[in-house]
């Protein structure tokens, strides 16, 4: 599965504990400043659940929380390491242009 932005945002949000749909949307908005729409959010959740990277917990008051699995944590970690290397390289190469 390709790492689309909503998938990364959802996995990142679940990295510190289980959350249901609305809690996910609010958390993602708070740490990324992105308002994920309900269709986008549940599209990402269904893809992640199919892949076994998140799993559903028993529903609480009709709201079903999701938690990240160990496979999901491994894939997120690998993706974030790569992304951080790309970001560090990009920023280092941009530095001369930005300071001149």
């Amino acid at each position, binding site marked *: 599965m390709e790492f689309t932005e909503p998938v990364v945002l959802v996995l990142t949000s679940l990295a510190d504990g289980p959350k249901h749909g609305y809690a996910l*949307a609010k958390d993602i908005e708070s740490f990324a400043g992105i308002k994920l729409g*309900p269709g*986008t959010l*549940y599209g990402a959740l*269904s893809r992640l659940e*199919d*892949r076994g990277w998140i*799993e559903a917990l028993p529903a609480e008051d009709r709201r079903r929380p999701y938690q990240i699995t160990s496979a999901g944590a491994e894939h997120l970690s690998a993706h974030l390491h790569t992304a951080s290397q790309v970001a560090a390289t990009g920023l280092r190469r941009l530095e001369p242009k930005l300071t001149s």
Partner: protein
Amino acid sequence: MSRSWPAALLIAYPPDWRDRYGDELELLVRDLRDHGRNPVPMTFDLLRGAAAAWRRSRRGFTMSERSRQALITVLWSWVAFAATAAWFGHDLGIYPSRSIAQQIAGAHQLVPDAYHVLFGVGIAGLAATVIAAVPFALDAARYARASHRNSVFALMAVPPVTAGLWLGGVQLAGRADSTSGMTFAVVWLLLGLAGIAASTQAVISIVRTCEFSRTTWRIGAGAATAVAAAMLVGTGATIVWGLAFRASAGHSAGTSGWLIVMAIMAVTTARAVLALHASRRQSPTPAPAPAVA
């Protein structure tokens, strides 16, 4: 129960998707509206989500990680098993010597002929692998073309190119003189094993990377089950043959080769069976598509 707008747009989603996520999505829409989210962008987002859900339900679905891993484990186990069985089966007619093989065959009429059983197992396993390989290759090519991933085509070329080069080398070895031919044959045999490993790894990379249709996964699951069953029969036949040999030739007979072969077969078979068993035991959250394999 009637749904408020824009949650009414859930009707646009595929039925199985709606059965699984509909209630949760409706609650989310309501929560977002209660907290002041603009319904107009939500409407477009829901329609986009519905279109994506339909595309996925028609074109394919994503295999659960455990089931995908099970298929990969079965493939690796099968390759190791088949290489061992091919070597053992090749030697079986004269193992440990032609006269002893004939003695065993004469003394144990009821013992199945291990060579023929292994041959049958090989044919059955190979047929299952080829039958599964066709839809996987077609889906992988479709995925590679749609997502502009030429690396998938390169991976798909590894098994046929490796086989072609290896068979070409075998032809050359046949023309060489006996001394250099023997050295060449040993080196080429080792290269052949490396080629099998590289080809298997290429196939596994394709299975890991690409998305396949539900039908393709089902065919893969059926093939994996057939292969695991063939491995069980092959391992059983090898054990029976070895015990018959020990009974005929005595416990002092050199059976270390048989023990090694049997150990490899037993371990690879156990890995394949356990992987399939584990993939079927995974707790099914009510997902839109059933997990197979």
